[in-house]
């Protein structure tokens, strides 16, 4: 095999995630104009980008309550992509799992924790009964938001369950990736609690040191 060298044309130009700075989240009062009642708001950032405002959305939880991300401005928000049928999610929420008690611990510190389920109709993890049963079994106090069209998941680039995102008090996305480096509780090397570290940095008002990590888990079951 021959590898042919190409002539360099210009210096490498790098995009800086922090440069683009559209307005941070602002509550849109139900988005009667320019927005949609469910999913990502039309006036919001289309794709999540670290350091930029997190795409705003409105989703309904299992009890029928609407949640606008913008309503949580001023608070740190954790978004957890969720599928109760995914064995990685099961392992993370059951005994000794990384997510078993984390939401409760951080709720006590004022952090808002939202599970988002982007499983499409007819695919694994979809359905109120399935999710309600898991929420009860795993004693989840935080809401599970239904994103069956997948628009919010795709806007955030959610690939796996679990896939974690942290939005800071200013509404900017400051972390995306795995809860830790230990799928099924088996770390590759020494345990690195990525999400806890990111939340510690946010709480301390510091820049998140490791803002992007490789997520692990099942694929999000978007509509085909």
């Amino acid at each position, binding site marked *: 095999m021959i590898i042919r060298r190409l002539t*360099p044309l210009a210096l490498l*130009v790098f995009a800086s995630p922090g440069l683009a700075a559209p307005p941070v989240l602002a509550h849109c009062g139900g988005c009667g104009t320019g927005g949609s009642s469910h999913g990502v708001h039309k006036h919001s950032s289309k794709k999540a980008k670290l350091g930029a405002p997190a795409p705003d959305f409105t989703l309904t939880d299992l009890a029928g309550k609407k949640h606008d991300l913008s309503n949580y401005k001023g608070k740190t928000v954790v978004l957890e992509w969720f599928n109760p049928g995914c064995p*990685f999610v099961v392992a993370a929420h059951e005994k000794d799992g990384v997510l078993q008690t984390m939401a409760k611990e951080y709720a006590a510190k004022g952090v808002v924790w939202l599970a988002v389920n982007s499983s499409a109709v007819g695919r694994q993890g979809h359905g109120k009964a399935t999710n309600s049963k898991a929420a009860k079994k795993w004693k989840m106090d935080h809401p599970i938001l239904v994103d069956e069209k997948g628009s919010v998941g795709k806007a955030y680039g959610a690939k796996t369950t679990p896939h974690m995102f942290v939005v800071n008090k200013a509404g900017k996305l400051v972390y995306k990736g795995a809860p830790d480096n230990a799928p099924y509780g088996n770390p590759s090397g020494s345990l690195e609690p990525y999400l806890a570290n990111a939340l510690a940095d946010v709480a301390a008002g510091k820049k998140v040191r490791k803002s992007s990590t490789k997520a692990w888990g099942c*694929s999000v079951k978007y509509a085909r």
Partner: protein
Amino acid sequence: MRAALPGLMSGLAFLACTASPESVSQPQAPPPVASEPAPVTEKSQAVSAPRKPNEQVAMSVTWAQIEGSGPPQLVAQLEAIPEWHIYWAHPGDAGLPTRFRLQRGAAELPHDTRMPLPKRMTSAGDIVSYGYEGKTHFFIDSEQARSGGEFSLRADWLACKEICIKGKATVTVPPPPKRGSQPTDTMTSDWQEVPKGKAIKWQREGPAWVLEVATAKRVELYPHGALQLALDQTRPPYCKGKRCRIKLPPSALQENPTLAYTLRIENTDTTHGLEADFLKGIQP
């Protein structure tokens, strides 16, 4: 009931194998870590465990004579049932690497697993994974395994279709014979697709790094963990035809000790793989 493996494996090492799914689509407890290896039922006879109705993957292992005059090579064959797949060492956006563990008594035997080129699989939501369907051979190199008595070989995989099920199998492997079995055609084909290490130089082109490969057909780039993360903003295809083009943020070059990848190079009649590290191959 046990079924005999193909005749090519007879007269050689072989083993009893237990495979078990560990998780299903409904919430369940994480699978137990330990499992008892099945005993060798008939040394030097090819045997396999019957596949239970709910199993997606079966394992068999043999010592094969992959390279004519070399020592026998330990080869694990994993066979997924139709429509299911298991994952490469670098599974991509989702999945879990297939892993092997060798133990003699309580002692872990160090080893190196060489996997053939995977298949690139995409699913809704621009989710890209790398894995294997059907029958795949994994080549396990362990000097310690070759030099002692019998040992156990455990495979752990994640089998996926619409849902994913974690599974494992453990076999007891006898010491290697003086000469391994004749490799099957699929084993030889998989061996030829095991990527070989190579230094590969990339060139800058505007904001991107570019590699052009002389091949009759096409080239694909499969990023390993750190490089995949760095490429998150520039989704595949990284390669079009015979040309690969990637953009990396400066942080990727500064923060990562390695940015490894595998190239799949397809010619008219053959496919082969090269393994390289971007950081060692960019133009100074």
